[in-house]
């Protein structure tokens, strides 16, 4: 689950990381009032920042500076309700529903600092770079040596000497080094305490008087750990989530919308990906990833149909079930029952394999509804692609 900048900064503030004063606003009037407060408190200028999950906001015009409260209000008015297009959004962009109004900072130096999981090592790592304020993946691609790492080992976490070592390797010294090291320790603690999968400060700013300030911040939280952080779960911004994916999740289905024409319903995530690959090999394009899970009850299958048929371009459905503990004859019956409650007006290709596959196929062949029955996955994919009108994507 992704958090917005303003939410992430509130968390950082609680952990003792210094962040500029700022307030979130949903209307231009609120934005103007927030900005006025900051100017009253002595800010020379304020930033107006679109609160969207996509990165690269600066490049898309989602971060602007204002020299007066009036100007801040105008900038907010222009941003709020608009679709912000950044290098990380699609061409349609994402709707801006909130802006963050923040005091300007005195920037002497911009660093990158983040905690993330190093999957190869199986533990979190601090990633740091002296090239702050940039897209870290670009930095990594262009100059891998500019990316510094320290690992948080199981049982030990990040030790102070590691944070200090990073600060010196970043070229800092004195007060700035101590401040940056302390910030990294706090960030690492927050990462662990909040079950984050990413805790990023970019840029971490060194001010003219060697202060250390988090100028932008981003937390991603491990969905599997939300059960122990109800306060974080409450921060979810559903306007940023894919509605179909959310609906699927409420039915314990794992669904991802894609832009092809063959709707897929598969049991198991790996097999679901494999089915998509097989469709692609057959010259077609999958319309979605959908793991219907282990049970494949009538209700689950019905929900799966309902969701995948919302894919606008779906012109055929491929059901691929490997019956293990689940028996294929039960799945076949489930599909037939589900189709009584959901209208599916495109051809349905079914491939059943494993326990009672033969019986399952028999049930489908004998039903009133017409199914295109296949034995192998390869055959199923070819038939589905043909049924969807060939390889036209």
């Amino acid at each position, binding site marked *: 689950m992704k958090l917005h900048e303003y939410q992430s900064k509130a968390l950082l503030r609680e952990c003792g990381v210094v962040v500029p004063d700022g307030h979130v606003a949903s209307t231009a009037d609120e934005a103007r009032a927030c900005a006025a407060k900051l100017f009253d408190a002595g800010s020379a200028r304020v930033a107006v920042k679109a609160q969207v999950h996509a990165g690269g906001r600066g490049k898309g015009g989602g971060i602007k500076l204002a020299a007066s409260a009036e100007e801040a209000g105008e900038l907010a008015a222009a941003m709020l309700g608009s679709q912000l297009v950044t290098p990380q959004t699609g061409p349609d962009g994402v709707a801006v529903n909130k802006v963050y109004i923040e005091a300007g900072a005195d920037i002497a130096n911009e660093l990158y600092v983040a905690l993330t999981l190093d999957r190869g090592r199986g533990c979190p790592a601090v990633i740091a770079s002296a090239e702050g304020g940039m897209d870290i993946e670009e930095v990594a691609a262009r100059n891998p040596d500019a990316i510094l790492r320290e690992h948080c*080992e199981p049982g030990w976490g990040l030790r102070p000497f590691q944070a200090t070592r990073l600060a010196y390797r970043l070229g800092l010294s004195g007060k700035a080094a101590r401040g940056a090291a302390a910030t990294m320790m706090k960030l690492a603690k927050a990462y*662990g305490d909040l079950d984050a999968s990413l805790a990023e400060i970019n840029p971490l700013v060194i001010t003219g008087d060697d202060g250390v300030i988090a100028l932008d911040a981003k937390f991603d939280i491990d969905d599997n750990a939300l059960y122990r952080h109800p306060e974080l779960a409450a921060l979810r911004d559903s306007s940023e989530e894919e509605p179909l994916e959310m609906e699927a999740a409420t039915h314990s289905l794992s669904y991802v919308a894609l832009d092809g024409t063959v709707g897929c319903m598969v*049991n198991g995530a790996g097999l679901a990906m*494999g089915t998509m*690959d097989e469709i692609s090999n057959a010259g077609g*394009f999958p319309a979605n990833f959908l793991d219907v899970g282990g049970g494949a009850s009538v209700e689950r299958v019905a929900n799966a149909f309902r969701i995948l048929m919302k894919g606008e371009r779906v012109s055929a459905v491929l059901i691929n079930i490997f019956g*293990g503990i689940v028996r294929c004859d039960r799945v076949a019956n489930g599909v037939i029952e589900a189709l009584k409650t959901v209208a599916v007006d495109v051809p349905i290709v079914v491939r059943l394999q494993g326990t009672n596959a033969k019986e399952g196929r028999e049930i489908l062949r004998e039903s009133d509804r017409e199914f295109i029955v296949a034995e192998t996955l390869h055959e199923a994919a070819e038939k589905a692609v043909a049924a969807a009108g060939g390889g036209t994507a």
Partner: protein
Amino acid sequence: MSIFVDSDSRILVQGITGSEGTFHTQQCREYGTNVVAGVTPGKGGMLFDDEVPIFNTVREAVAETNADVSLIFVPPPFAADAVMEAADAGVRLAICITEGVPTLDMVDVVGYCKARGTRLIGPNCPGVITPGQCKVGIMPGFVHQEGRVGVISRSGTLTYEAVDQLTRAGLGQTTCIGIGGDPVIGTTHKDCLERFAEDEKTEAVVMIGEIGGSGEEEAAAYIAEDYPLPVIAFIAGQTAPPGTRMGHAGAIIAGGKGTAAEKMKALRDAGAHVVGSPSEIGAKALEVLGA
């Protein structure tokens, strides 16, 4: 021969009285697996299915029954602690089926198991089966057949698919390991490859990877060092979009890293037989090994 488990393995089941634990323990026992103990705190002294003694703690179960492998069906909030308890009690192998364990819990668990010398398989995996000897997991036993090919996979049903093809091809399997679909797991592709290389009966390895992480690349680097067995590989998720989690917590192309194309290239360069489609696994294995 086989790796990890065989007919001498003495299995204990943590969470044996839960609904998952009960069902799959019964399935494993039907397959012939030697389940010697169960653990559910508070149910110590009872019997599972009138035969298997239940204990309050793993240490007690191990002391009384000499169990050496633990199969874990404990819900996510308690799964990490259950694995640590197994490791502390000295079981040789812990197999954690549980899906949905917080990642940072697993970071600790994997470190703890390493320090104790306990091998962990999983979490979020179907388990391990040595056909004809011992099934320690949730896979459908009947698709498997004693044979010549070792199978390693990050997924569940996709593995059964591959296994089924190997069985139909008459090749059968030595041992099949589901290593799990999470970002942090106890046993990697490479770990399994190492073990298969030492197994006399394994003549080839089928390795099923997917997008996300770098486990397949690490396996490829290991294969490139003169790996003695032919490896047939498939990577799921060639058509998956970047930045999106495909079901498994670990199946995500993050920061442009962990694509299927990269992994396939690394494996191909290492000399593995990489197939582009999951339906080609059995045929490729047959081609490589001969009938």
